[in-house]
């Protein structure tokens, strides 16, 4: 009986509205913001578990809001891919929430929680949207709340980065919107399924595809349009950096992936190779730049640039294994990167600076943080046993099976570069220097959250069959053959 009841609850809607409500409450009751925020985080996680059970039992779900079906109303759709990303968001979001309760002081807390929950809601909605305009709305909301969160830190660096981020976000979304408009003009609908059926390779559609892709690539910070990411991610407060690197960039990637799989007429071999090429360049460039950095958070931000490049290597390969590999990398990167930024936040809080060369004074006194950073680093490097290794393995497999061995070389080269910059930092944990005098105590919540996130990144590598099976629900990677045939 209970399971029956659980199955019938519209978890899709709950998952979107719960954070919205929470955000509103936090805004209205600033004194209770911390407690409310944390409670909301836990309830969102719980409702996602409900959604998980529902999808496991009943397969991919489609929900029509208000009973009005497309092309008039809004549809929500969840399949394995969306579910995976939702779960990832929930897990990382939970960790970030716990971390943020200990991180922010009184005044900043008031700003943080409403914005963070708004962002979470936009993220959830984005993963569940089934039409293009809805995606635009969520994307815009996401961008705006992210910009606001970056600006919380205050100070010239943060504000400058936030303004740049704002301009980038608006530009990207603008391009995307233009594309949607063009598509709507040609196809008379924005629902993904309907668009996929009616789409044709006419010039307006092609232009739309170009615009949308360019905009989304801009927002995903693919090389060479990544310049805005490092300052934004490095100058934001630690929990914000974590959620930016782990979740926000992935959202635009998700949209691009959906478009690629469901909407764009195939085949796209040249485009795929082009994207792969940009991805490879991102891997190399990001890795090399990360090696050069003197500040820890900048290093981690450039590492994000490199890891995003990995994701695009799946495009030229375009097999189910390749997509799964990219998504596994995405998942483990989210966990590992959030752990890294949290660790960096701890170090910053402890010593007041994050200059890498002076890290040794700090690292000795924070073994848990260093352990978190190292474990996260293991996943970023793609060493077993970690989620990063699983993703790397799958991509390598796909590359060698397709006979395109140069992507394999890029993957390996990226791994070596990441080993370089990870161990550059970790090496400082083992020196003989005395600890510095001015230290601020780091709350246990912050240290343990970072560690748990990193541990999750490792554990995700040991349970690989389950997420992989999860991704297959709803067969998102089966590219429909008869796309673009009828009008």
């Amino acid at each position, binding site marked *: 009986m209970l399971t029956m009841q659980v199955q019938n609850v519209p978890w899709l809607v709950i998952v979107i509205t719960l954070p919205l409500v929470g955000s509103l409450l936090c805004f209205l009751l600033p004194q209770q913001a911390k407690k409310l925020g944390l409670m909301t985080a836990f309830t969102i996680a719980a409702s996602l578990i409900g959604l998980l059970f529902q999808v496991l039992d009943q397969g991919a779900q489609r929900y029509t809001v208000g009973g009005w079906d497309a092309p008039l109303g809004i549809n929500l759709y969840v399949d394995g891919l969306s579910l995976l990303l939702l779960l990832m968001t929930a897990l990382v979001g939970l960790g970030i929430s716990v971390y943020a309760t200990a991180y922010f002081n009184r005044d900043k807390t008031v700003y943080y929680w409403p914005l963070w929950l708004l962002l979470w809601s936009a993220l959830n909605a984005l993963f569940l949207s089934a039409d293009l305009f809805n995606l635009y709305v969520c994307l815009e909301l996401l961008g705006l709340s992210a910009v606001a969160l970056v600006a919380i830190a205050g100070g010239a660096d943060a504000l400058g980065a936030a303004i740049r981020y704002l301009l980038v976000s608006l530009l990207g979304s603008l391009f995307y919107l233009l594309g949607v408009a063009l598509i709507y003009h040609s196809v008379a609908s924005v629902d993904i399924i309907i668009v996929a059926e009616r789409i044709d390779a006419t010039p307006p559609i092609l232009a739309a595809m170009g615009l949308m892709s360019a905009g989304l690539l801009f927002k995903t910070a693919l090389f060479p349009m990544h310049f805005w990411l490092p300052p934004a991610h490095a100058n934001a407060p630690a929990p914000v950096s974590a959620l930016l690197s782990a979740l926000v960039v992935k959202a635009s990637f998700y949209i691009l992936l959906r478009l690629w799989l469901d909407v764009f007429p195939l085949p796209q071999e040249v485009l795929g190779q082009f994207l792969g090429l940009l991805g490879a360049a991102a891997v190399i460039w990001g890795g090399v730049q990360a090696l050069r950095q003197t500040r820890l958070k900048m290093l981690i931000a450039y590492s994000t640039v490199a890891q995003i490049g990995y994701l695009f290597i799946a495009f030229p390969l375009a097999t189910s294994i390749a997509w799964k590999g990219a998504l596994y990398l995405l998942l483990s990167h989210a966990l590992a990167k959030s752990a890294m930024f949290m660790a960096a936040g701890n170090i910053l809080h402890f010593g007041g600076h994050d200059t890498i060369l002076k890290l040794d004074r700090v690292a000795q006194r924070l*073994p848990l943080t260093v352990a978190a950073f190292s474990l996260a680093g293991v996943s970023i490097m793609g*060493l077993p046993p970690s989620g990063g290794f699983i993703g*790397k393995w799958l991509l390598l*497999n796909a590359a060698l099976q397709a006979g395109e061995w140069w992507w394999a070389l890029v993957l390996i080269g990226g*791994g*070596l570069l990441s080993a370089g910059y990870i161990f550059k930092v970790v090496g400082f944990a083992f020196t*003989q220097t005395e600890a510095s005098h001015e230290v601020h105590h780091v709350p246990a919540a912050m240290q343990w959250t970072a560690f748990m996130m990193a541990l999750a990144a490792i554990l995700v590598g*040991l349970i690989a*069959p389950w997420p992989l099976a999860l991704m297959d629900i709803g067969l998102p990677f089966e590219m429909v053959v008869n796309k673009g045939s009828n009008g």
Partner: protein
Amino acid sequence: MSLDSVFPLFILATSLVPGLIIFFLPESAVRTRISLNMGGALIKVFLVGIVIWGVFNGHHYETRLPFLPGLDLVLRIGALSILFVTLSTGLWLVTTVYAIGYLEDSPHRSRFFGFFSLCVTATIGIALAGNLITFLLFYELLTLATYPLIVHRGTEEARHAGRTYLVYTIMGGALLLIGTVWLYGITGSLEFVHRGFVSAIVDTHRSSLIIIFVLLIAGLGVKAALLPFHGWLPQAMVAPAPVSALLHAVAVVKAGAFGIVRVVHDVYGVEVAVSLGVTLPLAVLAAVTIIYGSVRALFQDDLKRRLAFSTVSQVSYITLGIAVAGPIATIGGLVHLVHQGVMKITLFFCAGNLAETLGIHKISEMNGVGRRMPWTMAAFTIGAFGMIGAPPLAGFVSKWYLGLGALDAGQDWVIFVLAGSSLLNAAYFLPVLHAAWFKEPVGQWPHEHIFGRMETAWALLLPPVFTAFLSVALGLFASVPFSPLEWARFVTSLEFAP
């Protein structure tokens, strides 16, 4: 889930669980730490004993966990695994005792012993791996677990050595990964099978198989200190003596050599490898490494560096034995895996004793040490003579089989390599012995610790004496049933077609 299928996990857990617990212990919890360490080591010895008895009685121990689509994580206890597992377990126990004595009152002991246990876990995992992906997993884990041990002291030198180590081993790991993925792509399986699993596709994928072999051997050769990947080993000598002992006798180099054995026998199969023509270049490379390591060892004044180059040379004996690809030579290579481990660990323990008790790091400071520390130097003498190959020590047995195997397989040039190497071994070990026993000490010892009436602490003295005794026993009683020699014979009989 029968007991048989969980047993390998138990063996892993006996070092993993204490290690993880030790990480969280405060520095002052000395007794807890010691009891965890020793307890884990003793239980593991006990478990390995049970397993050997079980295998002898026909039990089949295998753990299978789903890991990747189409690939499982497999831990299997077969004949070859037992050889390496026994070596690792026994020597871990001895090294734990030594490390407890060596690091008394050092900082960061919890961290050290935590990573120490992880290192052993990784080694046992490598020994028990039942397919190439499990092997790869534990191989990389070994890299990650040994790095903190090398940089433990925290000096600039140690960090530099650690960096060099990482560069080499991570690149080696990358090569191994590419080789593995490629192999999986063309064969669809990575399970270790007696006499290899690639024979079906030899004709169609000849060049791919050759390149994969090169990649795999290059990746493994980094840890096995094959030329030109041996550069990290002498630099890693800045680590504390228990780490050098562990690295050079048990964990890292042997893991690399063991991997080469696995690749040649259980992935490719000897006949396939010979038909691909890859064994002769490997044998030549091993031979060059043997001579090169010995020559470099002649010029070193630092004792541990000399021993490091000696290791570079000696581990390649194993590779040479495997690459000569005859049954007797394979026996020689496999048995040398065990014998060299025992002898080398003796030498490193003694070097550590000299450093700890008298502050001696260089050979030029070793004049007359034999009078001050007779038991240590006696153990060192036995180890050194074993390396030279004097009968009836363990080294003689393995050199005998290697030489005989080479003659048997028609590779007569190997005899010259072995002879030259023995000469060089004598040239760099005998002066050390001569200086220690027959020369007069020059002034004061650099930095002396008095340990009461004994020449040095109990925990520092017992391990080298024990392993020296073991070297003699392994040589003298080599033909006893259940000796490493007989076990190596058994393993070889499985790998070669009757």
